[in-house]
């Protein structure tokens, strides 16, 4: 494959079968390797698409400052594109995210504003909205509410998966901005009405949720419940366990949110086996494990020790 520039090389990622972690020969699990994008995560797709659409309709012009709430990946993708295209970028990131993410953002020239750990990404979103109001000239692409986020997956990720796996029965991805699930989900539904769209939502420990007010929660503007078939909450322990299994049994070095998606994929796979059905389950490897190395979870002696290491961290 040949491309005219690094930015043009976003997408067209491999889809690989997991022979050891698939529940049976008839119930197969397939990993969409989104870590093979230019900055190493699935977020290159929405980030680039949001920038290009904003340029097209004149919201983003030379010399602009981009503002974005992010726990890392989207910020890294935006910062790389911003560097190549000559924009200034300010990222709002929860303070309890790994040091690798800060290094990567700084490396691409992004300015980082830390938001308090309590409340995690919810708080980052709130802080970014406040900054946006203070600086009306800054352009917040706002991944949680920008239709071009889901649009990137509708026009690229979805068609790629269906082309590689026409027999797909289930699509599983992590639930964050909901962009991947909304975009791929809508595309697959239109072309394969019986497909199940399954969300894997990260469930952190108490330290992260803190004293979250139940009356002022946060639901991304992009979220449309009707696109999903079901939604699983996956705790840190299961996510870490699956991340390590993926590494040790299939040789795929992925981030922790991928472990959560894999856990849900194996869950629906086992249900299919029980029901005597065959299935082709595709799930998204959102990023590689590089940014989470400092947590120590990949080399910890035991899974229990690895789980302990992740306490209080925003792992997705």
């Amino acid at each position, binding site marked *: 494959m040949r491309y005219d520039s690094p930015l043009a090389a976003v997408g067209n990622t491999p889809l690989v079968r997991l022979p050891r972690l698939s529940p049976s020969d008839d119930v197969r699990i397939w990993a969409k390797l989104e870590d093979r994008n230019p900055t190493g995560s699935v977020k290159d797709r929405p980030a680039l698409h949001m920038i290009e659409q904003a340029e097209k309709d004149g919201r983003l012009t030379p010399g602009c400052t981009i503002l974005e709430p992010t726990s890392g990946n989207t910020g890294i993708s935006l910062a790389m594109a911003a560097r190549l295209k000559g924009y200034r970028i300010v990222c709002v990131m929860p303070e309890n995210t790994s040091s690798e993410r800060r290094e990567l953002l700084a490396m691409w020239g992004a300015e980082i504003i830390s938001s308090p750990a309590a409340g995690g990404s919810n708080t980052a979103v709130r802080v970014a909205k406040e900054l946006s109001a203070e600086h009306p000239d800054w352009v917040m692409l706002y991944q949680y509410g920008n239709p071009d986020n889901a649009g990137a997956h509708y026009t690229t990720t979805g068609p790629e998966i269906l082309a590689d796996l026409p027999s797909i029965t289930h699509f599983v991805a992590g*639930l*964050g901005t909901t962009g991947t699930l909304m975009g791929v989900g809508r595309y697959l539904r239109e072309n394969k009405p019986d497909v199940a769209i399954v969300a894997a939502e990260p469930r952190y420990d108490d330290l992260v949720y803190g004293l979250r007010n139940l009356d002022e929660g946060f639901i991304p503007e992009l979220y449309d419940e009707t696109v999903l078939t079901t939604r699983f909450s996956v705790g840190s322990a299961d996510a870490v366990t699956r991340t390590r299994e993926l590494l040790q049994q299939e040789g795929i070095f992925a981030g922790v949110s991928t472990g959560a998606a894999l856990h849900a994929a194996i869950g629906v796979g086992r249900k299919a086996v029980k029901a005597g059905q065959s299935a082709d389950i595709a799930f998204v490897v959102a990023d590689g494990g590089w940014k989470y190395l400092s947590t120590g979870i990949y080399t910890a002696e035991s899974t229990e020790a690895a789980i302990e290491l992740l306490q209080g961290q925003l792992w997705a």
Partner: protein
Amino acid sequence: MAIEVRIPTILRTYTDGEKAVQGSGDTLAELFSDLDSRHSGIEARIVDEGKLRRFVNVYLNDEDVRFLDGISTKLADGDSVTILPAVAGGSV
């Protein structure tokens, strides 16, 4: 019939700080009423006009009950129910 209910930090003022409590009921609605009989006030924080509050997520054995039968979802002995605030998550 015993069902374990995991309580988020914000609601532990109703459970004397307990992270998890036991309850019973054939449906989630009955379970929340049962909890309220021992932890007065908790039901109103989860349910409003017979529906789950917008920013409250409830999971039955890790599956979001909004994709099951909502507050009418049937429960069985040994089930685990988790209550959580709605959050922004994922590798965003």
